[in-house]
C-alpha cells in the first residue's frame, strides 16, 4: 500500500498540472489547484502514518524515511497553504494586470510541475534521481520566476538558472566522485549503485580522501541551490522577482530540499571520514551565511529582498545546527527547517498583501499598514518577530536548541558571532517592519477590506507557527528524533 503511495505521490501534482491545461477559467483552475494540494497533503499524511508505524519504505529509485518525511510534510503542507493563498491573491493580481488570464493555466501547471519535482527530490533514494529532480526544480521554478515576463523577472530567472545549474552540476560531479568511491569500495550493479541506502551500507569503508573531495563539491553545489553564502547571490534576486506564492515556495521549501540533499551526503561523509569533517564544513558555511546576510538586511529597502536575505540567514542557522552536530544540533536543525519554512511562507504572504496594497516593494513607501489592514499588519508583525526569534513563536525554540547544541560542543566563538548577528539582524528587521506597520499611511493607499482567502492561508500558517512555538507534539517529536538518528 505505502509502496504504491511512494510513486503515487509525485504523480498527484503531475496529474494536477496536466488537468490545469484543460481549462482557462480562473475559478476552476483555483479549485483544481486547492483540491490537488489537498489530495497531496492527505496522501502525505497517510504515508506519514505508515512510516511512523512501519519504518522506512522503498520502491525502485524512491524511498521514504523519517528524514525525507519531514521535508515531504513541509512540501505538501506549504503547497496547500500556497494554493489557498493564491485564490485571493490571483483575483487581485488579475485585477491590477499583474497576471494575464490567458497565461493562468500554464502558471498553475508550472507550479504543480514544480511541486512534483520537489516531491521527487524528497523521495529520491537514488542520488542520481535526486540530482535530476533538483535540476527539474531549477528549470520549472526558473520559468516561474521569469513568469511576469518583464525585464527584471527575466534577469532574475537567468541568474537563477545559470548559477544554480552550475551549482548543482558541481553537485553532480560530487555525486559522481562519491559514486566512484563507492564503486571502488566494491559497490556495483545497475541502478542500485547510486542508491543512498546502498551507499550508506558501505559508507564506513569508503576512501575518506575521495569522499572529502566529493562532499566539498556537493556542499558547494547543493549549497548554491540552498542559498548558503557566498553562493547565495542569486537568491534575493530570484525570491524578490518571483510571484509571491512562488517566492513562498522557493524560500519555504525549495532551499530546504537542497538542504536535504546536503544532509544525505553529510551522512555519507560522516560515516566515511568521521562526523567532524562535514560538520566543520557546514559550520563554516553556516557562519558565513549568517554574517554575510546581516549588512544586506540592515541596509535593505526592498521588502522581498529583505526576506530573501533572511532566508540566507536562516539556512545558515540550519547549517550551524548541523555543524554543531550532536543529537541536539541535528534535531534543532531539522526543527528549524520546518519552523523557518512555515514562518517564511507567512512572511512572504503578508508582505505580498502589503505590496499589493501599496503597489510598491519599497519599505519606505509602505507605512501605517496596521491602520489600513489591521489583520494583515498584525500577521506581518508576528511573522517578523518570529523570524527574529522571539518567543512564543516557533523559531525561538529551534534557535534555542541550536544555541544549546553549540554550547554543548563548546563552539564559543561561533556562538558569540551567531548571537551578535542575530541581535543586529533583529534590530534591522524590527526597524524595517516597525516602520511599515506603525505610523500614518499615505492618503493614496487603498483601504479596501481584506479578502478572506489570503487571510485564511496566512492564519493557518500563523496558527502552526505559534503552536510549534508553544509545544512540540509527541508525534512530531518522535518523527524528529528518528530523523535525527538517521542523520547521525
Amino acid at each position, binding site marked *: 500500500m505505502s509502496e504504491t503511495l511512494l510513486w503515487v505521490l509525485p504523480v498527484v501534482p503531475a496529474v494536477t498540472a496536466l488537468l490545469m491545461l484543460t481549462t482557462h477559467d480562473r475559478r476552476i483552475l483555483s479549485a483544481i489547484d486547492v483540491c490537488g494540494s489537498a489530495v497531496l497533503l492527505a496522501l502525505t499524511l497517510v504515508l506519514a502514518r505508515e512510516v511512523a508505524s512501519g519504518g522506512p519504505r522503498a520502491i525502485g529509485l524512491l524511498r521514504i524515511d523519517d528524514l525525507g518525511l519531514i521535508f515531504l510534510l513541509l512540501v505538501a503542507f506549504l503547497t496547500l497553504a500556497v494554493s489557498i493563498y493564491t485564490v485571493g491573491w490571483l483575483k487581485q493580481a488579475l485585477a491590477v494586470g499583474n497576471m494575464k488570464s490567458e497565461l493562468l493555466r500554464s502558471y498553475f501547471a508550472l507550479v504543480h510541475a514544480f511541486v512534483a519535482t520537489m516531491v521527487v527530490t524528497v523521495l529520491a533514494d537514488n542520488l*542520481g534521481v535526486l540530482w535530476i529532480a533538483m535540476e527539474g526544480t531549477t528549470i520549472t521554478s526558473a520559468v516561474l520566476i521569469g513568469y511576469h515576463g518583464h525585464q527584471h523577472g527575466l534577469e532574475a530567472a537567468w541568474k537563477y538558472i545559470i548559477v544554480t545549474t552550475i551549482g548543482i552540476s558541481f553537485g553532480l560531479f560530487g555525486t559522481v566522485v562519491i559514486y566512484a568511491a563507492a*564503486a571502488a569500495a566494491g559497490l556495483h550493479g545497475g541502478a542500485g549503485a547510486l542508491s543512498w541506502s546502498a551507499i550508506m551500507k558501505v559508507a564506513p569503508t569508503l576512501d575518506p580522501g575521495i569522499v572529502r573531495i566529493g562532499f566539498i563539491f556537493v556542499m558547494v553545489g547543493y549549497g548554491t541551490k540552498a542559498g548558503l553564502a557566498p553562493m547565495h547571490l542569486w537568491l534575493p534576486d530570484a525570491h524578490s522577482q518571483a510571484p509571491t506564492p512562488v517566492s513562498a515556495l522557493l524560500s519555504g521549501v525549495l532551499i530546504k530540499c537542497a538542504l536535504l540533499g546536503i544532509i544525505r551526503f553529510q551522512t555519507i561523509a560522516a560515516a566515511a571520514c568521521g562526523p567532524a569533517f562535514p560538520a566543520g564544513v557546514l559550520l563554516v558555511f553556516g557562519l558565513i551565511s549568517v554574517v554575510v546576510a546581516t549588512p544586506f538586511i540592515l541596509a535593505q529597502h526592498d521588502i522581498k529582498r529583505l526576506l530573501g536575505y533572511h532566508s540566507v540567514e536562516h539556512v545558515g542557522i540550519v547549517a550551524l545546527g548541523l555543524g554543531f552536530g550532536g543529537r541536539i544540533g541535528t534535531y534543532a536543525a531539522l526543527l528549524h527547517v520546518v519552523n523557518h519554512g512555515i514562518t517564511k511562507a507567512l512572511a512572504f504572504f503578508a508582505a505580498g498583501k502589503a505590496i499589493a496594497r501599496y503597489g510598491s516593494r519599497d519599505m519606505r513607501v509602505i507605512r501605517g499598514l496596521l491602520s489600513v489592514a489591521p489583520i494583515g499588519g498584525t500577521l506581518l508583525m508576528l511573522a517578523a518577530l518570529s523570524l527574529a526569534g522571539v518567543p512564543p513563536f516557533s523559531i525561538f525554540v529551534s534557535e534555542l536548541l541550536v544555541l544549546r547544541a553549540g554550547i554543548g560542543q563548546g563552539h564559543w566563538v561561533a556562538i558569540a558571532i551567531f548571537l551578535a548577528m542575530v541581535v543586529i539582524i533583529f534590530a534591522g528587521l524590527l526597524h524595517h517592519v516597525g516602520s511599515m506597520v506603525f505610523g500614518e499611511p499615505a492618503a493614496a493607499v487603498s483601504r479596501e477590506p481584506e479578502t478572506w482567502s489570503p487571510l485564511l492561508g496566512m492564519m493557518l500558517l500563523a496558527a502552526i507557527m505559534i503552536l510549534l512555538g508553544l509545544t512540540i507534539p509527541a508525534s512530531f517529536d518522535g518523527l524528529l528524533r528518528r530523523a535525527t538518528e538517521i542523520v547521525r
Partner: protein
Amino acid sequence: MSAETVHTIIDDLGALLLFTMILIVAAGQIYRAIYAVAAQSLFIAVAGAVLATATGNVDLWVIAGITLIVKAMVLPWVLHHVVQRMNIRREVEPVIPVGATLALAVLIVVVSFQLSASLGSVRQAITGNALPVGIALTLTGVLAMATQKTALTQMVGLFASENGIFFTAMSVTQGMPLIIEIGVILDVILAALVMAIMVLRVRSTVDADIADLDRLRG
C-alpha cells in the same frame, strides 16, 4: 585491449579535452566556442566507445551514442540557431583579459592535479588521470562562464563543464546507471531550451543580452 592502453587512450583524450576547453576559454568568437564544445563532446563520445569496448559494458555504448547525438550535434545546433536568430555581434567580450583567464585556467588544472595527488594510493583505484582532468574540465568550464559576458558563451561554458562531468563519470566509474545518465541528459536539453527561450525573449523585448542585465543588486 589491455588496461594500460585504455589508460593511455583515456589520458590522451583527457589531454585533448583540456585543449578544447582552453580553446573555449580563449575563444574570441562565439562560433569557435560552439565548435570547440561540439568537438569536446565528440571526444567524450569516443572515450565512451573506448571504455565500452574495454569493459564490454553495453550501457556505455548507449551513453556514448546519446552524447554523440545530443551534445555533439543537437545542442551545438541549438546554440548556432540562437546565434543566427539574434544577429548579434559575434565576438566574445571578456570580463578580464584573456591572458588572465588562461592563467586562471592553468591554475585550476594545477590545483586539481595537486588535489588528486594528495589522494595518494587511492588514485590507482581510479583510472589514471581521469579524476584531475574531470575536475579541471568542470571548473574551467565554469571559469569560461565567469569570464565571458554574453549569454551564449555562458551556455557554452555550462555544456563544457557538463562534458567534464560526463567524462569523469565514464572514465572513473564506467558510467553511471543508464537511466540516470539519460535523465541527466534530458535535464540538460530542457535547461538549454529554457535558456535559449529566455535569451531570445529578452533580445526581442528589450534589445539587450540577458547576461548584461544588472539592475538587481544588493
